[in-house]
């Protein structure tokens, strides 16, 4: 087995999930200049809700094909996360719209802690495992094993990204979002209901996060009340890598970060002479984050900070 090809595939799969979560961070930042630290937890709630539904469905209808069961879980998780994000924005962030920027940031961390603990109360501290209902077919391409699930994740993620791109670039709502991101005040004076646009931004990000949550739990085979924390941090790093506030940047940053992490994990043993193992893979995301912040704070595709009037 060729380790480079294998890790590249793993990295792309992981990276497309990071990219989906990163989109939520970057869209909200683009409009509110708020880092919504609760976004990782929204992803986690999406995974948990979906797993609960999947568990129930698999129990009630054991003959149903696994794909349909998972689809059922996703279809419940999406509205649940949308509602959650709508509520978070309305209750926790909107009252602080005119407060100093630090206030909503700290509130976001608070919301994230509340959601973690809420999830712990509902689903417990133990890992919730993803039932083995999806086909485990594997293909071999250039020496790398690729599972059907991996292909499905990447294809679905790329489809979602393309749809989001069309939404932002080609629709009335997307235009209003871009206008609001450039100047909330002027957008409002051109008749854009800015509150509604902000709500829509949170809701769309949450719907994507719900799908990403299901992907992560299906990929690793489990979910946990704490999973949103690391996933959120990595997705945030990906958003910063691509240029926070920039949608294409989040997609690129997510994919790149996934690949860097996977290749790093694959070769770290060789590089350090066996001193560090692949369980140090989390380190790479944060090395990248630090590197970007030091050498190119605006990110790969971000505009120069000085250009923001």
């Amino acid at each position, binding site marked *: 087995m060729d380790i480079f090809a294998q890790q590249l595939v793993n990295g792309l799969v992981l990276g497309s999930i990071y990219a989906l979560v990163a989109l939520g961070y970057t869209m909200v930042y683009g409009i509110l200049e708020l880092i919504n630290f609760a976004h990782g937890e929204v992803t986690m709630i999406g995974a948990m809700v979906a797993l609960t539904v999947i568990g129930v469905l698999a129990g009630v209808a054991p003959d149903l094909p696994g794909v349909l069961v998972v689809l059922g879980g996703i279809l419940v998780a999406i509205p649940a996360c949308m509602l959650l994000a709508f509520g978070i924005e309305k209750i926790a962030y909107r009252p602080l719209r005119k407060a100093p920027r630090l206030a909503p940031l700290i509130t976001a961390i608070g919301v994230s802690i509340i959601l973690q603990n809420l999830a712990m109360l509902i689903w417990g501290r133990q890992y919730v495992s993803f039932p083995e209902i999806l086909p485990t077919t594997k293909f071999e391409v250039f020496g790398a094993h690729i599972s059907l699930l991996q292909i499905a994740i990447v294809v679905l993620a790329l489809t979602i990204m393309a*749809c989001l791109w069309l*939404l932002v670039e*080609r*629709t*009335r*709502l*997307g*235009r*209003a979002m*871009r*206008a609001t991101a*450039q*100047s909330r*005040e*002027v*957008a*409002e*004076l*051109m*008749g*854009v*209901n*800015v509150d*509604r646009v902000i709500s*829509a931004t949170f*809701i*769309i990000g949450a719907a994507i996060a719900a799908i990403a949550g299901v992907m992560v739990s299906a990929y690793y085979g489990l979910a946990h009340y704490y999973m949103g924390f690391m996933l959120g941090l990595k997705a945030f790093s990906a958003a910063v890598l691509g240029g926070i506030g920039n949608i294409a940047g989040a997609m690129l940053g997510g994919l790149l970060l996934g690949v860097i992490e996977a290749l790093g994990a694959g070769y770290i043993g060789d590089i350090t002479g066996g001193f560090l193992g692949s369980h140090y893979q989390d380190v790479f995301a944060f090395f990248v984050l630090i590197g970007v912040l030091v050498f190119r704070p605006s990110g790969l595709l971000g505009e120069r900070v000085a250009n923001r009037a």
Partner: protein
Amino acid sequence: MSTASLLQVSCVTKRFGGLAALEEVSLDVRAGEIYGLIGPNGAGKTTLFNCMTGLYSLTSGAVKLAGAPLQGLKPHQIVKCGFARTFQNIRLFANMTALENVMVGRHPRSRAGILGAVLRGRGTRAEEADIRDQARSLMDYVGLHNKGRTLAGHLAYGDQRRLEIARALATEPKLLALDEPVAGMNPSERRQMGELFLRLRAGGVTLLLIEHDVKLVMGLCDRVAVLDYGRKIAEGDAASVQRDAAVIAAYLGSTPVGAAPT
């Protein structure tokens, strides 16, 4: 020309802390006229615009558009009532194309929301096509031909001013408030803008014009009000305002004999 009142500003006061930026200002803009608002720098003209368009809340007073009170409404609701504006320092969406800027202006007159954006049914697509067509014809109307694909921030200065007007017109205003629309333009550009304003008036749009260019104001405006230190010191047709002693004092900084100091 009808003489029905379109915009009524009654006794508007705006204080920032102890500073009175506007003191009991009343205006009455009639439908179909070009109404000029002039005054030295810092007189409160832009503050009045901000109060009328909902950016500032009034300390006291009332603003009515076609009889409907505007105070307390959010800016986007005021736009929907038919009040659009441009900005003294151009404030376009610089990273969007010129056409998209105008399309944003169609927002209050179109409907598609999050469901439409996701599902993109026939109605949504038809609406989107309408928005695009209307935006294109507005750009032609203000004289921006074939510049739809240019990023707004890359347009020439005069074109940016025109684009702001097209974007404001896209909201279908009854009243269009222009904050120094010809500032920084050369004489021929100014003349073209003046012609545009007359065409707008002929098309049924009432204009409220803040301007420093006295020649333009005097040539275009049906009536003129003068603000100084937050108070209205004169109002009337252009010629009589020009002869008003208080106005001369405000502009020249001296108090002519016989005029009360303000």
